[in-house]
């Protein structure tokens, strides 16, 4: 029998926000199951900057945003995210990834982040945080 996969908080990064309303994305169907189970769905305000471009693609993302929690990035989160990057050996710009992980770390556990950037998110995350790879 398959183990129960229950999570309290599910965080969508930019790639997941886009995939959630894609015609053939499995994530769309999983979100329905998550909603039925009472999982709370989150993203961050910084992620909105990453995905919204004022194009027609925004329409579905904006529709999705009305039904999930958008966590605002304040100074405390921003500082902690910077320190989080500093604790890794990652090269390149992972600023928003770090903000997403820091926000996730402050949500009720168990918490999972859905992303297509498994490597960087895993490097930035805490041991008790699930990083679910959208790209496989």
């Amino acid at each position, binding site marked *: 029998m398959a183990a129960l996969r229950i999570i309290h908080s599910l965080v969508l990064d930019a790639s997941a926000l886009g995939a959630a309303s894609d015609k053939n994305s499995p994530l769309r169907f999983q979100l329905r199951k998550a909603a039925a189970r009472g999982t709370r769905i989150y993203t961050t305000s910084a992620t909105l900057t990453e995905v919204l471009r004022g194009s027609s693609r*925004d329409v579905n993302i904006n529709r999705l945003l009305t039904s999930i929690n958008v966590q605002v990035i304040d100074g405390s989160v921003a500082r902690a995210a910077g320190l989080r990057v500093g604790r890794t050996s990652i090269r390149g710009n992972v600023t928003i990834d770090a903000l997403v992980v820091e926000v996730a770390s402050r949500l009720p556990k168990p918490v999972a982040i859905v992303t297509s950037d498994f490597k960087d998110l895993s490097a930035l995350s805490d041991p008790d945080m699930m990083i679910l790879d959208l790209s496989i």
Partner: protein
Amino acid sequence: MTPSSGAKKSFEKPAVRPSVVEEALADLLAGPFDKVSITIPAGLRARVAERASQSNFSSYVTDILAQEEKRIALIEFLDQLDEEFGPPSAEQLATADLRWEEMWQRYESSTALS
């Protein structure tokens, strides 16, 4: 000030109506606030009181109502997508379950190695 010649056309004529964006960003928890009286079973009230003091009972209930409203809105949004794209096939649902299981297994493998 005149826009530079290199400015993107979308800035002059947004493809997404502002009202859509405003609606999307509207915060259910923003004021003004209404005071309402509700009747709930005493046993439930006592149990909730263990988690929420009298002073933050309103915020406790507000959070639960807001989350439930968002949960319903998410299901409605997914219903709308199903109407647009057609309902998922049994194969798509099976694939979704398989992909989700694979994601969990990858997570469990990574934590087992760390």
